[in-house]
């Protein structure tokens, strides 16, 4: 149920950490395959987090589907909340990745 949030937290830490370290140390010039290294790291972290969250979302949706009308109220609540949280995490991770591709890395 919390997989999405954890993935978001990890993505958050990685992109903030990487951006400030690289910018602070002046290691920004390096590129990988024509993409700035900051952008590359953010892209990788974002895609990884998205993948994990998408899996978690699929799983919680399945749980939600299984927990039909006959399931205990607590189970239904948990599966619903799980799907919601994972859905939101997916969106937020995406939003978090966008700025790197619009703004300069170290402004």
């Amino acid at each position, binding site marked *: 149920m919390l997989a999405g949030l954890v993935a978001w937290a990890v993505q958050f830490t990685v992109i903030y950490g990487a951006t400030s370290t690289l910018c602070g140390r002046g290691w920004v010039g390096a590129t990988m395959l024509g993409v700035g290294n900051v952008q590359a790291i953010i892209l990788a972290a974002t895609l990884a987090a998205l993948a994990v969250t998408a899996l978690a979302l699929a799983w919680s949706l399945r749980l939600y589907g299984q927990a039909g009308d006959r399931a205990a109220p607590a189970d239904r609540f948990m599966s619903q909340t799980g799907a919601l949280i994972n859905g939101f995490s997916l969106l937020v991770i995406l*939003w978090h990745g*966008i700025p790197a591709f619009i703004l300069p890395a170290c402004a």
Partner: protein
Amino acid sequence: MGKGRAAGQESCQCGGEAEFAFWRPVAGCFAGTKSHGQAYPFSACKTHVGQMDLEATWRDAPRRLRAATARAAAFACVLSLMGCSGVQSALDPAGGDARQIYWLTVIMTVGGTLIFLFVTGLLLYAIFAPPERRAWLGSRRTIVYGGLAFPIVILSALLPYGLIVMRDTDVPMPDALPIEVIGEQYWWRVKYPVEGGKPEFATANELVVPVGRPVTVSVTSADVIHSFWIPNFGGKIDMIPGRINRLNFTAERPGIYRGVCAEFCGDQHARMAFDMVALEPAAFEAWRAAQAKPAQDPDAPHLARGRELFRIAGCGSCHVVRGTEGNGAFGPDLTHVGSRRTIGAGQFPNNIGTLAGWIANTQHIKPGVRMPSYGSFTGEDLRALAGYLESLK
């Protein structure tokens, strides 16, 4: 209904029939203060809210709405007269950056208002519509589309839009004209550094830029934190002691604008402004060449007397007048003070009268500035001194 209404009127002693409406007990209870000249006792709140007369409120609503609309329209009118065009208005952008910020503001404000009105409408509908007609509001479909999909789409569009505005405003340009501005209590020291073989010089309370050429203003402060803001050209930028911040913009049309200090910095913060003049490139170069020259020598006896008084009174210990003994770096550079539009950091039009008034009454017209009043000059001397300053074109 009749009974509750009568009781309400009695105990609150409101004047006419129109005075009693649903908002009165509510407003009275929140504020607990006088409205329409009569105290509203807290003890009455409970009863009055209980007596809130919905029917009368409905009956009264159209009139109330009309009055409110008229008031709002009048207010908007006044506002637009005051703020929508002018020398110091973010609503009248004169540069590309300011225009982008302006449109961002318009879209956010108008969009936000429309969404607010729509949601308020739905809220009222949910409260007042008959149950069978408002049932759809609680359906899963409404919640998923209106409550989830709609905000997600709007926010997903606004995020990149806002980021793009951020990326495209305040961008440093390689061939920009460098200008340095230092905030001091309560005026602006302005320096034009050496650039392309043209000599450096200093002026004050005035920023002159060429139209069409990017400008980079580097700002800092000599004392407390100030903030540099020319609404027609872009955002604010803090002036922080020991730190240099930069603001980049390009003026697109010639004109006279006004900048202000946008961070409270002391008693005279409100009187800390400056003129910003955007000139055609040729006029700008002429201005720059003139400013770099030393001060003009007086060409009349009373002006020479003025220069002598300037020296005797010790003005030169705080003010630079290039080409004379005056070399004090504490106050504004006065070498070409006569060419400026205003004095006192954008406070008074610049002429012999205001100059004399400033010298004789400094602490009276801008109390707390770091220049003493010189109240003991004779009228003739004061005229000579002010005339001398005015002649420093």
